[in-house]
């Protein structure tokens, strides 16, 4: 629909809102803002939970709102609201202007919005293509049934979540973009018990922009994987603490790079002065075997985007090349405040957060070794087959729980061990990644940070860390 055909006093999804958006941006610029950005969102979510052999929760939800960001110099004011009327949006602009105490008359130019870039055209049918609640429920119940492989499994859960997000982004540099994003995720969890022994197993799968993906998900393979993991760990002893070499498995093993190093390469960390890598561009920060990438373009990956939350198409950013730091992950505020060019990484959980520099699909590139090469090179150490969650502290220390671990003795995998935690600092550990396998795989996850929880992919091939502190008992 042409903009001249509609003159609405409220944002209407699926229609052209150019006149209204321009009016609001003109209003902000007229009041003295250097830059005005409007992010408008309409989401349709559904989640389903199966426990044992019953569907125990079906939760649809709808959310509509706008986030308005005003820059004056390097300061920014952000206002979010559920009120998508012209009056509500203008009131939010006024509030942001007032917060920033803008009183000068120096006006920036706003030449109107550019031609609409509509990434949603081919995606409008997705809402009708995603599986129905009935279909989801049936498959989840089959999945939880598949987990019932012996009487040691005492708890079985399957969960599904679908997020369909329609966004409109407009800003005073002319950006005018619409998009529809679809994320689906499914997870299986078990708890196994035998006398005083207990273990758990879990796996999560996820995709973006692929309405059919849940139908294609191999629930039997997933159930076998979760079951085997819980059985392997049921009678495991606690690991002895100490310094040792470790091999981290591919897929979700990449969470350690994401948390320990990836966050330190976001420009928000430069802004805060909390990254040790701030002045290390083009310097060696990792072992020469390490090349690390952050991108938003792998088709179907959980962290992929057609366009970021600031209206920029995502790029493939080589962060570290052969151990040398090459790039930081940057958003609009990051470029303004640190000088690092935007990388299409401005992301937010929803309209109530201002976008920030965030990772997308982040992984260590594959090397030349086989998994066996890595394990054979260790006389005594730990193989971390499955990683749990982790965190990184304000001064760069990280810790990660090992969900499924095995001792390595004389180049062979031996007994399973539980209770292991990997502890270290990125600056010290990155140079110790001495071998990378040839089996790169990615895994989906959720990353919580300054702009909320966003979908990401972590990944790596099997990697060997020459020495790391393993917490245990």
């Amino acid at each position, binding site marked *: 629909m042409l903009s001249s055909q509609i003159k609405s006093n409220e944002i209407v999804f699926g229609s052209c809102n150019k006149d209204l958006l321009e009016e609001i941006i003109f209003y902000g610029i007229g009041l003295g803002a250097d830059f005005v950005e409007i992010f408008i969102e309409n989401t349709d979510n559904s989640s389903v939970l199966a426990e044992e052999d*019953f569907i125990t929760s079906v939760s649809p939800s709808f959310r509509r709102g706008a986030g308005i960001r005003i820059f004056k110099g390097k300061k920014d004011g952000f206002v979010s609201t559920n009120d998508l009327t012209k009056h509500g949006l203008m009131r939010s602009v006024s509030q942001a202007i007032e917060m920033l105490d803008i009183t000068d008359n120096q006006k920036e130019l706003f030449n109107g919005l550019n031609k609409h870039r509509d990434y949603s055209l081919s995606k409008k049918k997705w809402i009708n293509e995603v599986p129905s609640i009935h279909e989801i429920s049936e498959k989840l119940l089959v999945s939880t049934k598949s987990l019932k492989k012996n009487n040691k499994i005492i708890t079985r859960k399957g969960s599904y979540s679908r997020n369909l997000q329609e966004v409109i982004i407009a800003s005073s540099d002319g950006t005018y973009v619409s998009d529809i994003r679809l994320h689906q995720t499914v997870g299986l969890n078990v708890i196994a018990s035998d006398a005083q022994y207990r273990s758990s197993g879990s796996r999560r799968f996820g995709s973006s922009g692929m309405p059919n993906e849940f139908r294609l998900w191999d629930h039997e393979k997933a159930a076998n994987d979760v079951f085997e993991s819980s059985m392997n760990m049921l009678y495991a002893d606690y690991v002895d603490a100490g310094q040792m070499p470790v091999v981290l498995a591919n897929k979700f093993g990449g969470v350690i790079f994401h948390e320990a190093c990836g966050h330190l390469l976001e420009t928000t960390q430069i802004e805060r002065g909390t990254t040790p890598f701030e002045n290390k561009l083009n310097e060696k920060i990792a072992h020469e075997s390490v090349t690390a990438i952050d991108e938003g373009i792998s088709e179907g990956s959980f962290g992929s985007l057609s366009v970021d939350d600031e209206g920029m198409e995502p790029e493939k950013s080589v962060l570290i090349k052969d151990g040398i730091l090459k790039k930081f992950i940057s958003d609009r505020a990051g470029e303004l405040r640190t000088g690092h060019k935007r990388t299409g990484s401005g992301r937010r959980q929803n309209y109530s957060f201002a976008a920030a520099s965030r990772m997308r699909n982040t992984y260590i590139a594959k090397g030349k070794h086989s998994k066996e090469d890595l394990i054979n090179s260790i006389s005594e150490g730990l193989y971390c087959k499955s990683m749990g*969650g982790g965190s990184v502290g304000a001064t760069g220390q990280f810790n990660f729980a090992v969900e499924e671990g095995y001792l390595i003795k004389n180049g062979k995998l031996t007994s399973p061990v539980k209770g292991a935690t990997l502890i270290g600092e990125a600056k010290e550990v990155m140079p110790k990644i001495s071998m990378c396998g040839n089996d790169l795989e990615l895994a989906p996850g959720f990353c919580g940070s300054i702009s909320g929880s966003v979908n990401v992919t972590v990944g790596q091939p099997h990697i060997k860390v020459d020495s790391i502190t393993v917490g245990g008992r």
Partner: protein
Amino acid sequence: MNSREITTQISKAADFLNLKKWDYGASFTNDYSVQVDKGEAKQLKASQKQILTIRVWNQSNLVGITTTSDISESGIKKALKQANIASDFGNKNESTEFSPLAKDPIKVKEVKKRNPVGIKKLLTVLREAEVKLLESHESIKSVPYNGLSESFFERVYANSEGAFRSYSKSQAALYLYARAEEKNKKPRSSGSVKLGYGADDIDIESCIKEASNKTISHLNYSSIKTDKYLICFSPESFLTIINAFSSMFNARSIIDGVSLSNKNSIGEKLSTEALNIYDDGLHEKNISSTPFDGEGTPTKRLCLINRGRIENFIHSESTARIFKTTPTGHAGLGSKVSVSPDWIVVEKSDQNFNLKTSLDHSTYEGEFVYIEELNAIHAGVRASQGSFSLPFDGWLYKNGKKISIESATVAGDIKYLLKNIVNIESSQEVTTSGISPHIWVEELSITGDA
């Protein structure tokens, strides 16, 4: 629309859709917050948010739910329709009803109404706090994480049988997290959080002082030898661990098979007889208190551990019915109603004769590890297995000296920890998550670099 009008609107729309039984929970929030960076405003935020969660019961008495931010007439109708569709998938294995206590009187703390002080004042206050913190010690180079916020909200619960509860309150929070750097040493960080009913109620000076003292106290650090140690948990860290394993008292977790307890665990001895633990959402020091839960059940004080034994579980309506007891005011409205504690209070019981009272964190001269703050709870706690392995900030006390521990984790089992409590100090401290004294535990594993 105000909350009464929303109730009327839902009632009309439900009649139109022939839905006889429904309830809803809603919240309406206005937030204002500021962050600064070396005297400059960094980000200033304001938000207006409304969330409405509607449950409906269909003719088979199965429940469906929908959450929406659209409280217009059409938004409410859409939500009711969607909830009705979802009710076809309602849990046939476990029914949900209104709380039998949803019309009981509630106790509302008398708190003077605070008005927003406004972004400009928040900014001025935070700027001054940042300057004072930076000036408090030459090694404090920045305050990378800081914020001052104020929030004004209303919570509502109503149902088709005439229950209606509404509650408004305000809350403000200040956090200052400083970073200290010295030549040839690793940067060290620590901070403080303070809450108040309004921005004017926050004890800013004590937040600055606490953030400064804590950060400076970690400047001289050393690695610790991996071994078993006598541990003194700060009130904050002990509350963190109790909250992390609160599934032991949670009827929902017990039914779901993810708790260390079972239906018959009432009366089970969990710890030394000297320990009492309560959940007390209405405690006068709890700034975040709410007088009713997501199902409209009044909040109340509940004894969880009495003289070392499990005394009560926390419940929603449905778990209480299964356990043949009454709801305790701990429900969160959802398709599957969640259950969670409000505010934990740890006390020394009257059966405290066997405690080693010489263990006092301010006077004890023997070797011990003081755990100030536990980190990365989501990663290091296996609540269903009872185990934990957590990084912490703290000190090693040895030979009359106190030295910050560079980087270490404490690992163990919650049941072992509770059974090996050797002292509960007399003096309680108020934290943001509850009240507790210092707690001493024998023989927990610490992993360090040395």
